């Protein structure tokens, strides 16, 4: 594989209007954020944000440190309760619901610090994500078990972790940990993935593999929302960009329109 970063187009960026992928207009709104605010004591972490995540595209949240991007993820997934506003998933409000209920409803996330199940093997990490609804053991007998293992094998192969199957997450290299984080989310049946800086620190080969995997998943109908700081990655990945600063949504639209806005660039690079 080339050591150079591939562009989104080289990695089969879908054509506008082709089914679930492409254009950001006219697609179903999967997640609707309305007038969302969050105060931490005197700090206004999120300030009256309204944003829609549309089906089958990659929306990227950008903004300087402290803009409220991760806080927004935490509120969508129920890890933090908002002070005001609503988050609606496929038409139903998820405010007040426990994070595990929101996860089972189809919203999966990764963490900036990965939060892998460090003392479990790679295979166990993936299997655990496929068992959210089970209590003592998985139902369905040998047939379902064989299907689960088949899915694990596929995920391992696609993420390049087959050789690390029985390695503890703790013992993986940095890039492998990043891919395990992605492999875990691939194991869920979620329709919406919230990825917190999934490509940061990846070498070019790993980055290209990551980009390809993401595009394949989006093509399969997965909706993705990414937090990312690296503008090269933002350009290569995004179908739509939402720009946050100091808890406010300043802009939301096509990547080029956002990235070419000198006022937003000044904020992003701290030149205001």
């Amino acid at each position, binding site marked *: 594989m080339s050591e150079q970063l591939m562009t989104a187009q080289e990695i089969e960026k879908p054509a506008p209007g082709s089914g679930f992928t492409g254009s950001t207009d006219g697609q179903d709104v999967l997640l609707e954020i309305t007038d969302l605010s969050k105060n931490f004591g005197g700090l206004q972490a999120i300030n009256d944000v309204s944003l829609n995540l549309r089906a089958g595209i990659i929306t990227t949240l950008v903004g300087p440190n402290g803009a409220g991007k991760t806080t927004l993820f935490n509120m969508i997934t129920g890890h933090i309760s908002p002070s005001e506003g609503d988050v609606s998933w496929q038409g139903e409000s998820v405010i007040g619901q*426990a994070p595990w209920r929101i996860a089972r409803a189809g919203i999966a996330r990764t*963490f900036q610090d990965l939060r*892998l*199940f460090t*003392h*479990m093997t790679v295979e166990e990490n993936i299997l*655990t*994500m496929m068992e959210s609804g089970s209590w003592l053991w998985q139902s369905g007998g040998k047939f379902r078990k064989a299907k689960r293992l088949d899915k694990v094998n596929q995920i391992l192969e696609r993420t390049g972790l087959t050789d690390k199957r029985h390695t503890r997450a703790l013992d993986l290299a940095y890039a492998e940990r990043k891919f395990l984080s992605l492999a875990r989310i691939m194991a*869920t049946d979620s329709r919406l993935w919230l990825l917190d800086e999934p490509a940061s620190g990846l070498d070019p080969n790993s980055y290209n593999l990551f980009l390809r995997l993401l595009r394949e998943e989006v093509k399969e109908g997965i909706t993705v929302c990414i937090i990312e700081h690296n503008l090269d990655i933002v350009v290569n990945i995004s179908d739509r960009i939402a720009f946050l600063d100091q808890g406010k949504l300043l802009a939301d639209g096509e990547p080029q329109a956002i990235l070419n806005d000198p006022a937003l660039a000044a904020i992003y690079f701290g030149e205001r």
Partner: protein
Amino acid sequence: MTAYILNLLVLISVYAILSTTLNFIIGYAGIFSLAHAVFFGIGGYTAALVAMNVTPEFFVAIPVAMAAAAVTSLLLALPALRVRGEYFVAASLGLQVLAVTLFSEWKSFTGGIGGVIGIPAVEMLGYPIYKPWQFLLMSLICLVIIIGIIRILVHTSFGRSLKAIRDSESAALASGKNVTVIKTLSVVLSSALAAVAGALYAFYMSFINVQSFMLDTSVLVMAMVIIGGTATILGPLLGAALLMLMPSVLTYLSFLPQTEIGSIQQIVYGMAMVLLMIFRPGGIVSSHPGGGK
């Protein structure tokens, strides 16, 4: 001499049950409880009461003792497991202190400070068990069954959920795990199985009082788990054997002042814990000396 060794082996197997059941929550779920002796005690007192007032039948007394411990553990687990780990440690310590007071004062159930005396020999399907080797066999069978249950559980999706919660509670929540329910179930199961040890202990000693169920016992069992090796099957067994044998071994060391054996034992426990935490934090049996589970 044979009776002495048999006595030691019975006590080791009873404490091995305790350490194995505590390891289930410490090693696999990351829940540190300082109240394990409470469920040991509830098992003992309940089995004694059933044996003295209803029937000494093993298959009646043990399930009732397990049920009593399970219900009591719910009182601790339901409120305490909604908060993070360190709060559970504090809550379990509170329960331990409270339970010792109750065990000392609730005379109709525990006999107060004097304890319960004259517990009849346990019967297994009508056959009385009173010889030490019979007790040893019975407690070893119980230990093997409990190890089997735990071994099966930790390899199911329930076990993976426990380990996931131990490693990252927030990630487990984000993967759809109902963390509170899973943690509560694990504490209830661990407590119910600890009650088996309490019942066996009560039947074996035919006398129990609060001295056996105090904070010292909870700390001793936790030390067995940590010294032996958390999240392993062999670790708690080895820890129980080592810490139960240590007082006997110390009495054979003639150069030690025999009147101070108790204090020396505490010093050895403490030093062993400190050295292990520095050099082998996963415990003696840990397959990952650097602290892996």
